[in-house]
């Protein structure tokens, strides 16, 4: 309640987040403590540097992209709400979820949203298309300097050719979903959060 210390989560917030993301109460408090421990600046928001301190992200070649996914366009701080929203993408789809029926539209952890999240990792300029350049950049991140530009280019070309169905030499989101339709995204893009 109001009497609580400012760094603590308020119940209303929890309720809202619960509604928004589908996390349980204890998950939210748990994640909040995590959020809090990441927040070195103690200002209730995470900066990019805070994320980069996480070792898993530091070693991930695509770490930057993932970190980026936490930040809304043009901002370099993310508060707990935003943090939770992003994490919600990774919430496993539970069996009872369908029955419960979240009130507002598609839950964040639906297949589409998971895919969209993955798609955004590659869509550097957020134009809803993965162009050859973007793909090249991402590939470059992944392989470092071990492979020549030319070869990487041919990989990117092939990838786009394979996925591209409408001939614009870009991979749109629908093409992306098409490509990954056989991948068990629900399973693979889920993280078992502690209850």
């Amino acid at each position, binding site marked *: *309640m109001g*009497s*609580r*210390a400012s760094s*603590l989560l308020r*119940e209303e917030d929890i309720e809202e987040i619960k509604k928004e993301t589908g996390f*349980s*109460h*204890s998950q939210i*408090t*748990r*994640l909040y*403590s*995590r959020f809090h421990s*990441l927040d070195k600046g103690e200002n209730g928001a995470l900066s990019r540097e805070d994320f980069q301190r*996480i*070792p*898993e*992200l530091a*070693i*991930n*070649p*695509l770490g930057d992209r*993932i970190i980026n996914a936490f930040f809304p366009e043009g901002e370099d701080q993310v508060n707990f709400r935003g943090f939770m929203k992003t994490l919600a993408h*990774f919430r496993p789809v539970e069996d009872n979820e369908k029955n419960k029926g979240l009130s507002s539209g598609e839950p964040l952890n639906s297949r589409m949203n998971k895919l969209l999240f*993955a798609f955004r990792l590659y869509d550097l300029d957020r134009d*809803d298309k993965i162009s050859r350049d973007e793909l090249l950049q991402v590939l470059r991140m*992944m*392989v*470092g300097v*071990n*492979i020549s530009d030319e*070869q*990487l280019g*041919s*990989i*990117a070309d*092939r*990838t786009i*050719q*394979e*996925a*591209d*169905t*409408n*001939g*614009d030499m870009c991979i*749109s989101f*629908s*093409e*992306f*979903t098409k*490509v*990954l339709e*056989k*991948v068990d995204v629900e399973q693979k893009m889920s*993280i*078992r*959060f*502690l209850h």
Partner: protein
Amino acid sequence: MSDMTEPATITRPLISSKRHKSIRKNSRRIYSPYQDENGPSDDEDKDGERVDSNDPEELFQNIQLQKEIIANIRTKPWPIRRKLKVLKQAREIVLKFEGRLTRTRGYQAAGADLLKKISRVLYNVVVLFIPWEMRIKKIESHFGSGVASYFIFLRWLFGINIVLTILTGAFIVLPELLAGAPFGTIRSKTIPKEHLSSAQDLDTIWSLGGYLQYSVLFYGYYGNVRKIGSAGYRLPLAYFLVGMAVFAYSFITLLRKMAKNSRMSLAGASDENFTFCWRVFCAWDYLIGNPEAAESKGAAIINSIREAIVEEQEKKKDTSLAVLISLRILANILVLLSLAGSIYIIYFVVDRSQKLEQEKPELTLWEKNEVSVVVSLITMIAPSAFELVSQLEMYHPRTSLRFQLARVLVLYLGNLYSLIIALLDKVNIMSSAIPVAPGNVSSTSYLATISQPTEDNLSTIVPDITERQNSTLTMTLLDLNNSVTTIKSTASYGQPMRMQSLLNQTVIYEYNTRSQQDPCWETYVGQEMLKLSIIDMIFTVASILLIDFIRGLVVRYLSDCCCWDLESKFPEYGEFKIAENVLHLIYNQGMIWMGAFFSPCLPAFNVLKLIGLMYLRSWAVLTCNVPHQQVFRASRSNNFYLAMLLFMLFLCMLPTIFAIVRYRPSQYCGPFSGQEKIYDIISETFANDFPLWFSKVMSYVTSPVVVLPALLLLFMLIYYLQSIARSLKVTNSQLRLQLQSERTDDKKKVFKLAAGRLQAPEGADKKPEQESDITSMESSARSTSPTRPNGSVVNFESPVRHGNSIRTITQSASRADVSRAAGAARSPGAPVRQKHKAEHVPNRHSGYLGGSGSSCRSKSYHHMAYNPSTRYAESIHSDPLFRKTLRPMHTEPGVIMAQSYAGRRAHTTRYVIVNEHEARKKMRSTVRLPRHYRLADEPAEIVELYPRNVKRYIPRTPHRSHQPHLSEEEEEEEEEDPKSSTRRGSIRQSQRPRSLSDLHQSARFYIGDTVDSQVSMEQGLYGDEEDDDQDEDWVNDSAHLCSQTNIPESTCRYGEPHVKSKSKHKVEPSLTESDSASLASSSDQQNSSTDQYIQIIHNKEKYLKPGTKLTKKKSKNSVKLNVSASNDLVCSNV
């Protein structure tokens, strides 16, 4: 973030500790209010909150939390009062709410959790127990799947050898050691006196003589007593059976593994789609939290991408064929020469060593080991030579690896065989010397010249003879014989003979025969094989150290003080040569199989060798080798290695079997001594140890009366299974095709969608929301709504789409094939037909009858294309005539029509439909079919075809300007692709939904205009003829063109004045009118079976040439396509 990854990390303790910590944190936070305030308000708050949540899940969580608090409250650094309070609070909550949940629920949840944890731990443990799993994974990540496949293969061989070792160890070696006559008790187990002194010399041991020769290592040591020990273990029988079981087991495991692999590869083959995308998008494992693992993963990704690149380059590579062929021929000649050379050298060496053995009593170390060393040297050097040669050939790395493997295999086999033949030669001499010993003198001379081992054996016999024949003679004979062998004086030799002859004439004979036969040839063979194996191991170790390690050291540390860069120029670091190493393993295993019968401990030795090899190799690979320049993908289910191994096994079994069947076992050593043939042990066992009836039964069973029918039955069975397998294969490919077409159907729907969207006036909006539209597309496809079709008429914006619509035609053609193949058009069943239906929608619209050259030239062909289904037609001035003519064309599912309109302009484009054989007949029959395919038609499809054709065939037309998307170069670029892809054969191609390659199939439609289209095509007349026809229709067509495609009026020179580019509805009427008019003129043709129809001919070689010729005329692009196209469509007007 780490909260996210936490659950996935494998290490248990970490997680649990983290969990613990966070729980504590939670509890502290949750209860921190108590610190500041007094209870009541908070209690209410808590209670309120708790009561609110009626969700059992949440309740359960809360209770769990409270319980944790109760459990941990002791450790909290709080004042005792607060602790008490919190404790009370927590207990209350637990008491209050626990009743709401059943206790079992808690247990269930806990149990499930526990189970999960345990299974995960178990899984990790299991992985730990797979030998070398981590090692191999590490190598794989750095060196790619090719190198890893070597190690996996090695591990697998290791497994086999373990089993073989157990077999021989448990059934032969152990019983012999435990229950057999101990060392030194009988002659065959005793080292002859005169050799006893040298029996421990390094030299003797090295050549596996002395103590080693008289040990369980070799055949000769085993006794021939039928039953040993108190249990009566039949050692000889066991020896024989185990010898056979070794082969049988190897065969069975090999075959099973191969079968499993091929199953896997069949199952895996269907996932060929989107390999690149998956590689790129799904590469990283986001749960990796360990820097080392991250590095490995990164290396793995790089490798997989490299592999992909190689595959890619391989597809694009083209060199002049003549050069390539001549190079390959040259390479093969070189390889053959070196093979012949190496075989000759081995033969020469073996021959020489045999001569040396006969001539010289004492051999030097080199002379003794000459053969093995030469063989090992050749096996080391020749593969490198082959590798050099194979660079000439320029195959795909995987193919060249296979060639290399096959060549090296032949080399190894040649080596082994020339060796084995030489050995058998020797065995032959040894075992067939009996009749050659007529008199004393000759035998002595023979003895004098006989080789070293023979002498050893000779001397061993002597005491035995004396023991048996006459005990009184023992001492003298022994002495005398010793003197015989040592001094080799005929005189002293003569003496014992005389003494023996006094006793018994037969003794002399026996003595002679024994003295010559006694060299235990089985032991000799076993020794040779073991020696070979040992030397091979030494060479392997040496080569690893020298070629890899030392070289690596030199390159690494001397490159600074050298004038050129050692690391990148001459010596470089060694590469791991997969082919050579795999072959080496196979060769090694071959030696084991070959020698196992004669040296039961060979598998055990091999196990040790493989273990050593595994560690040494993996160490060497990781420390001194660099990844192969060209990494390529070696599928794990690689049956090629196994096939070679099987081949090797078979070939290695032959000499053993041959020796067993052909030669007489040594008389005085080994388990089978005294028998005529080794396999007699079986019949003997039957005769002695089985009841009488059994041997009778056996004799019946083995008589031709039973064997022949059984053989016949076997053949029949094989044939039957074979045919079943074949039919299954066919079904399989059909199913795959079906799947494929289903997929293309989906794709098509998406296109339609896109088309639908584009049809909106300004149409450029291509936002990707197709998913949602798919359903609507479907519905529109099934039940036509008149408005929709009209709306979608115009769509020529994206070239890809054109390509796509054309593609669907080919697709459906192939589908039709399938159905026909299945026996009857209907047989594939409802779903397939359904699909036909769906597919024909676009086709029908685009259907077009090829213009006929002569009298039946119709002005109206393209109007055919507008054969909308009734509804559609009605909506736009339907006219009966028109429909009538159309009907025949589209009713039959098997008949596929593809038509494109644009052709007019281009002079070329009439296209064609494709229908198969007996088109005529079918057409007629189909005319009468009710039209149940009134599906919605989306004129969009028609139009889609349009621009493509225009562009392709008529560069000079004004329409060209309307193809904004592709420039000439782009087109070319794209078209290279199909060329490469089509190499894989038509089936594969059709399965691949690669839009670009599909695109190009549009180029594969040809129209034959003459009555005899094929002839005309071959003559290359086609273009000219068509020009004439089409010019006549020019006006009409251009009008349609303009209207349909919304081409700005300026471009339509012949456009009818009332056509407005933007108004589709206005356009339509004009279209149909003109259509009907022209159709009217041509309708009679249709109905009077002059039959214009179109055939789709799957382009086989027969048509390939004409096709190319034609296309050359048309455009360079299509030339390329043609060559590769396997399902080109040739349209003809018959």
